[in-house]
């Protein structure tokens, strides 16, 4: 069965590159670009994994992650967080909120693929 990744990211060219490499690897990819209704998008699309940017319009990735962890349906959902803010306090914050993996930009395609595969191993 094809696994499903939801990319929540507002940079269109990064989204395009991520979509390409994940699709090529056999993933079903869906996209969302706004922070406001991101949690609803997750609940509606029910992905196997979420790739979540930190700096999103209207609502930060940290707030979205918190909402996901507060919800019983998405408590265990693997979330790979991407950020240009590589400060240690951001990493600590993400871990405190229950992130599955935290990666800083710029990342390599191979690292992303590897992280996605590891996080969705059952």
């Amino acid at each position, binding site marked *: 069965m094809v696994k499903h990744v939801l990319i929540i990211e507002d940079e269109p060219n990064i989204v395009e590159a*991520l979509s*390409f490499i994940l699709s090529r690897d056999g993933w079903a990819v869906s996209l969302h670009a706004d922070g406001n209704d991101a949690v609803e998008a997750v609940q509606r699309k029910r992905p196997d994994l979420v790739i979540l940017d930190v700096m999103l319009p209207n609502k930060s990735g940290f707030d979205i992650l918190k909402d996901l962890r507060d919800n019983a349906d998405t408590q265990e959902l693997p979330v790979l967080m991407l950020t240009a*803010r590589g400060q240690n306090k951001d990493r600590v914050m993400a871990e405190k909120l229950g992130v599955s993996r935290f990666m800083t*930009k*710029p*990342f*390599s395609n191979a690292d992303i693929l590897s992280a996605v595969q590891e996080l969705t191993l059952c």
Partner: protein
Amino acid sequence: MPRETLVGTRIRERRTLAGLRQAELARRSGISASYLNLIEHNRRRIGGKVLQDIARALDVEPAVLADGAEASLIASLRDAVGDRAGGVPELQRVEELANRFPAWSRVLNESFQRITSLEKRLAAASDRLTHDPYLAAAFHDVLSSVTSIRSAASILSDTAELEPAWRDRFHRNLNEDSARLAESSQSLVNYFDNSEDAGIGITTPEDEVEAFLQAHNFQIPAFEAETSSEEMIQVEAGKMRSAAARFMLESFLKQYWWDVQALSADRLIKAVAEFGIDPLQLAQHLLVDVTLVMRRLASLDENQIPTPVGLVICDASGALSYRKPVAGFAIPRFGAGCPVWPLYRTLSAPLQLFQTQMTYSGDQRGVYQSYAIAVPVTPSAYNQPPLLRAYMLIRPVALSKSDAKPRQQPENEQHTRVGVSCRLCVEVSCAARREPSILAEGL
């Protein structure tokens, strides 16, 4: 060791440096060797002709033996070492150090001055890099472009058979992102090029307004004139480059203009001459609000009042909306100030006027008198708490730097140690600390 008793020590050191025996120096100076021995052990005070004869025999100026190292050097060393050592027992021997090793002491002092200067620059740069919203956005832009370029380049390079449509899209993306990267990089370069002092340049609306106020020394003379009119607010605000800065300056100038109408500079200066810089007494005498007095005092030129004053204003969130620094008391350009400032205490006790003497924990170790109060800025409404604005007027207390100590406190006055902000404060064990200091603990 008291300063005057060191003459003998200096004579002994000079004699030793000159390679003279005690008896030989005594002979050349026309005194007995036993008397010189007593002098050299600081057991006889000397001056006048004997001092001049010994100085001549040692080929130095009498003042070198009498005065030793310059007082400024000693004071400076005491300040510098005292700040860093936290009051080591050897601090009391700083005069002896400066007298015995004047050249080394000067080198040491210069090094301390250099460190202090670099600390200030580092603090300013760190403050900006940590809190400046423009820099955060610019770096985010650069990193996003680099991420996109790296991914696209990797796809183009690693994918053996890439469909022409995809290839074209990633080529287009590369082109777009490289142009965006060039633009954001150039923007960053311009930003730093424009910075005049340790990475501080005009980029944000707050910077623009602050630069305007500093250029005018926080005083708008045109508004003080009898011929001023409210239309001048728009003219001045219109000089701002950004709409946000225009809005902020217009708000400030409106308040300034109304303040001038309510309390002229001449009237305030006359009252200050009678009552000094005490906002409560001035307000009572002038029959005006104490916050009006604070704002108007901050708008006066240093030459118009006995001592300069600083002023900070914040809203109920603690965000600073007005910063007029005063000699030695730094105010952070970004982020919150020191949590111990009386300014913040007022927010939990509106309308209570706090008079607090503050010892500043920065490099200057100054003592400052502060007057702080929080007042409602919205009209009374049923079941609605008022919005508050807090003011803190800061006046340096005239004390010499080297022995700055708080004076005896009146019963109704408090005393507290304060800093700039946690990040730039050396008070490591402060209970209010919310983040490590870059000065005390390194980056």
